[in-house]
C-alpha cells in the first residue's frame, strides 16, 4: 500500500534526476552537430561534462562590489531550473496531480529575475546590458506563453502538465487537433527566444556587447559558473522536452512492462535527438536577428497563438451547435 503511494513519486523523482543529468549532454550534442554541419570537427558531445567537472573543481571569486544577491543567485537559478524536472513527464506519464504550467512559467521568470539582479550586482556594464535585452524578450514571450496555457486549458480542461495532452490515446494531438500544430510552431519560436538561441541570440558568442543569455553570468566563475551554465542547459532541455511531450506524449506508467519502459525511454531520447538535430540545422541556416526586429517577430508569434486560441474556441462552439 505504501509502495503503491510511493512508486509514482519515486518515478517522478527519478525522471527529474535523469533530466538534470542528461541536460549538459543536449547542449554538447547541439554544439557538436552544429560544428559537423559547418564542416568542423567540433568538441565531442561529452565535452560538456568535462567542462562542468573542471568548473566544479574551481573555487569561485566575486567582484568587489557584490552583495548577498550575487552569492545567492547561482543556487537559486540552478534550483529553479532543476525543479522543472519534477514538472515534465519525459519517459512515462505519472497519473495524479503534477506540476502546473503557470508555475513553470513562474519558475522560469524567477530564475531570470534572480540572474538579472545578480548581473546588476556584479557591477559590470555587460550584465545589465544583456539583462535589459532578456527582459525585453520576456515581456513579449510571457503573453505568448500564457495564451498557450489558455489554449491547452481550453482544449483539455487543465493546466496540469502531465494531463496537458491526452496520453491515453495512441494518436498524437497533432493529428486529432491539427490546429495545435500551429500553436506548437509559435511555441517553438517563443522557446528559441526564451532559451537565447538563434535568431535571437548567438549561443557561444565571445562578443560581450551582443550577448543576451550568457551576458548575465559573465562575472561568474568556478562552481558558481558551473551552476549557472548547468541551469541554462536544463532550460534548453526542458523546453525541447516540453515540445516533444506535446507533440508525441509518452505512455502512462500504470500497467507498463519493463520492455514498454525501455521502449518509452528510447522514444524520449529519439524525440529529443530529433529536436536537437532540427535545432542544429536551424541554427546553421539562420543568422542573428537585429534586436529591433524581434518586436514584430514575437508579436507575430503572439498573433498566431491568438489565432489558434480563437479557432480552438470557435471549433468547440461549432461542435456544440
Amino acid at each position: 500500500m505504501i509502495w503503491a503511494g510511493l512508486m509514482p513519486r519515486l518515478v517522478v523523482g527519478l525522471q527529474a534526476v535523469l533530466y538534470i543529468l542528461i541536460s549538459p549532454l543536449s547542449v554538447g550534442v547541439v554544439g557538436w552537430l552544429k560544428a559537423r554541419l559547418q564542416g568542423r570537427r567540433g568538441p565531442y558531445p561529452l565535452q560538456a561534462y568535462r567542462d562542468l567537472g573542471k568548473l566544479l573543481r574551481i573555487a569561485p571569486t566575486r567582484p568587489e562590489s557584490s552583495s548577498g544577491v550575487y552569492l545567492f543567485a547561482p543556487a537559486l537559478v540552478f534550483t529553479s531550473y532543476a525543479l522543472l524536472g519534477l514538472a515534465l513527464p519525459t519517459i512515462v506519464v505519472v497519473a495524479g496531480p503534477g506540476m502546473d504550467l503557470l508555475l513553470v512559467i513562474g519558475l522560469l521568470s524567477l530564475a531570470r529575475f534572480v540572474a538579472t539582479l545578480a548581473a546588476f550586482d556584479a557591477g559590470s556594464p555587460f550584465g545589465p546590458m544583456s539583462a535589459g535585452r532578456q527582459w525585453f524578450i520576456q515581456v513579449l514571450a510571457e503573453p505568448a506563453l500564457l495564451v498557450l496555457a489558455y489554449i491547452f486549458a481550453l482544449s483539455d480542461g487543465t493546466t496540469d502538465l502531465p494531463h496537458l495532452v491526452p496520453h491515453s490515446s495512441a494518436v498524437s494531438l497533432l493529428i486529432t487537433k491539427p490546429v495545435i500544430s500551429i500553436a506548437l510552431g509559435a511555441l517553438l519560436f517563443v522557446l528559441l527566444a526564451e532559451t537565447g538561441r538563434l535568431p535571437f541570440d548567438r549561443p557561444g558568442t565571445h562578443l560581450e556587447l551582443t550577448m543576451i543569455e550568457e551576458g548575465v553570468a559573465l562575472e561568474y566563475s568556478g562552481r558558481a559558473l558551473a551552476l549557472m551554465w548547468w541551469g541554462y542547459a536544463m532550460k534548453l532541455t526542458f523546453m525541447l522536452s516540453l515540445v516533444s511531450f506535446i507533440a508525441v506524449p509518452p505512455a502512462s506508467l500504470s500497467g507498463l512492462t519493463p520492455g514498454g519502459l525501455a521502449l518509452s525511454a528510447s522514444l524520449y531520447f529519439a524525440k529529443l535527438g530529433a529536436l536537437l538535430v532540427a535545432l542544429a540545422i536551424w541554427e546553421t541556416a539562420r543568422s542573428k536577428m537585429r534586436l529591433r526586429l524581434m518586436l514584430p517577430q514575437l508579436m507575430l508569434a503572439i498573433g498566431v497563438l491568438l489565432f489558434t486560441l480563437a479557432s480552438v474556441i470557435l471549433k468547440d462552439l461549432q461542435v456544440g451547435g
Partner: protein
Amino acid sequence: MIDLLGIVSLLLLLGGIGAHVTRAFSRADDDGAMTWGTKGSLSAAFAATIGLIVLAIRQLVACGGGAGCNRPAVVLPLSRPAPGLPSLALSVRVDPTAAIFLLLIGTCGACVAVYSFGWLHGDPLRNRVAGSFSLFLLAMVLVVVANSIFWLLIGLELMTFCSGDLVRYRGASGGPVEASRTAVRTYLIVSHLALMSVLVGVLPIIVSHHTLNMSVLSGAGGSPAPAFSFSFILLGLAMRAGVTPFHFWVPTVHPQLPTNTHAMVSAVMLKIPIYLMLRFFLGGIVGPVQWWWGVVVLVLAGLTAVVTVFYALVTPDLKVALAYHSVENVGIILAGLGLALLFSDSRFANVPGVRVAAALALLASLYHVMNHGLFKSLLFLCVGSVERQTGTVELHRLGGLCRTLPWTAFAFLIGAVAIADLPPLNGFVSTWLTVQALFSGQQVYLEHSSVALVILPAEIVALVALALAFATTALAFVKIAGQALLGEPRGALASGREPWSMRTIMTVLSGLCLLLGLQPWLLVPWLTAALAPLHYAMSGLVATPTRLTISIPAAQRTVQYHATLPVLPLLLLVASAFGLTALLRAWRWKRRPVWVGGSTLDPSAIRYSGNAVSALLWEPMSRLRPWRGPAEPAVMDGQPVPAGVTGPADGTYPPDQGDQADRPAMPFREAWDLSPTRSVPEVANYFYNRLISRVITASYRFGRWFQNGDVRSYLLYMFVVVLLVLAVLSVTR
C-alpha cells in the same frame, strides 16, 4: 463585537485628537510634549489595530457562513429628519466580508504604527502625521463597517479629509509648495467628483426603496435603472481607485504623503473602492448582476494594469513608481472582480461550473487584496527607510544600499519578488488563482454562444494585458533594485542604520509575504468565509498544506476543469536554494575587481543605469508624440491664460500674469524625462491638461459675456429666475 469596535473607535479618536491637541497647545520648542503626544497617539493606534485584528479574526473564525454575525447592530439611533424620509441611524455590521477588510486595515495599520515610532522620530510635523493617521484609520473603519449609505458617504468624506491633511505633509515640511497645492486640490476635486458620481448612481435605489440601510437594500431588488446605477457607481469608484482613464491623480497626490502613511493609503485606501464594488454590485444593491458589467470591469482592469505598469517603469522617482504599481495591482484585483461579475449573471445559472468559477475569481481577487496590502506596505516602508537614511527617493541618486542598509535592502528584495508575482512568494499565489479563474470560466461561452463573441475578446485582452503587466513589473523591479540596492554604493549615501522598530516591521512583513506564498491554505478558509455574505460558496477550491486544487464541474459540452498548485516544490525551492548556497560556501568566495573589458576604467563610470536597462521598452514610446511641439498656451482675447487660475485676481480681466504668461502651468505631469534627449509622454495627463485649460478659457469667455455690467442684463436674469421658480412651483404643486 460592538464593544470591541467601540473600544477601537474610541482609541483611534482619542489618539487622533490627542496628537492634534498636543500640537496646538505645546510651544514650538517644547520637544517633550510633542514627542509624548506622538508616541501616545501611535500607541493608541497600535492597540486599536490589534483590537481590529482580533475582532476581524473572531468574526472570520466564529461565523464561517453562519447568519448570526451578519446581523447589523444600531449604534446611533437617529430619528428621521422629517416624516417620509429614510432614517439616518448609524448601524454597523461586521460580517466576514467586512472582517477581511478590517483585517487588512488592522495588519497594515499595526505595522505602520510601530514603524512610525522610528520613522517619525524627530520630525517637526510628527504630531500632525500621527493624529491624522489615527483619524484616517477610524474613517476607513467607518466606511467598512457602516451599514447605512448616509454614514458610508460620511465615512468616505472623512477618509478624504484625513488623508487630505496628510497630503499637505510634503509641502509643509519644505517640499515644493506648488506641487503640494496641486496635489491637495486634485485630491479633493477627484474625491468629490467620485463621491457625487456614486451618489448619482445610488439615488434611484434609495428613492425607490425609501431606506438607507444597506442590508435592507441588498435584498430589496435593486435599482429601477440598473445600467444607470451601475455606470455611475462604477465611474465614481473607478475614479477613487485610480482605474486607467483616472490614474493621473494617484502619482500626483500620493507621493506628497509622508512615506509611512503612503503605505497605508496605497495598500489599504485604494482597496476601499474595491470593497464598495463588492457591496454594491455583488451584494445585490444595484440589482441582479449582468454579464456585460463584468466585461466592462475586465477591460478596464487590463487597461489599468498595462498602462500604469508602463509609466511605473519609466518613473525616475521611487514613491511615484510605487504609486503607479499600486494602481497596476488594483487592475489585477479588478480582473478577478470583473470575472466574478461576468460569471455571476443569472442567465448562466443553469451551468453548474460557472457559479464555482465566479467564487474562485472573487477569492483570487480578495487574496490579491490581502497580498497587495502586505507587499506594498513592505515596499513603501522600505522606501521610507531609504528616504529617512539617505534623504532622497530619486532613483538616479541611489545605489549600493545592499551594503549600507542591509535590512532595508533585503526586505525590499523580498517585496520585489512578491510584487513581480513570482514564486514562492504570495503575489504568485493570487495571480495564479486569478489566471486560473480566467481559464476555468470556459463554460460561459461554450454554453452560451450568443455572448461568446463579446466575452472572449474581453478575456483575451485581460489575459494579454495581465501577462504584459507581470513581465513589465518584474523588469521594473529589476531596474529599481538593480539601480538602488545592488552594486557599488554611490550617490546619496546612507547615514547610520535603521531604528529597530523599522527593522522589526520590515522583517515581519517579509515573513508574512513568504508565509502566504508557501502556505496559502492558511488564508483560504478566511477568504471563503468572506464570500459567504455575498452568497458564494467556495466548493471548487481545496486548500491543503501540500497543494491548492481547483476543480470546476463539467457542463454539458465541456470537460471538468482542474488545476493544482503544488506547494512542496516551492518549499523545496527555498530549502535547496539555501542549502546549495551553504554548500558552495558562498561567503568565503574571494573578492576581486570587476572585469571592464580589459581596460583601466573605473567600473562605476561605465555602469548601466536602470533607465538604460528598460530602454528597449520605453524608447519606442519616447518617439511617439500625441501632439506636435510644446503645449499651446490657452489664449483669450489675444492674451494667454494660465491654467490653474480660477478667478479674477483684482477684478481685471484677464488677470495680470507677469512672467508666467508664456509658460502656462499644467497641473499634471505631461512627460517623464529619462535622458536629456528622450522623454515619454503621459498621454492621459496631456488630455486632462488640455481639458482643464479649455474649460478655464471657456469659463472666462462665458464670464465676460454673462457679467457684462449692463443693468438691463441683470434685470433680465432676475426675470428669468422668477419665471423658472414659478414654472417649477406650478409643476410640483
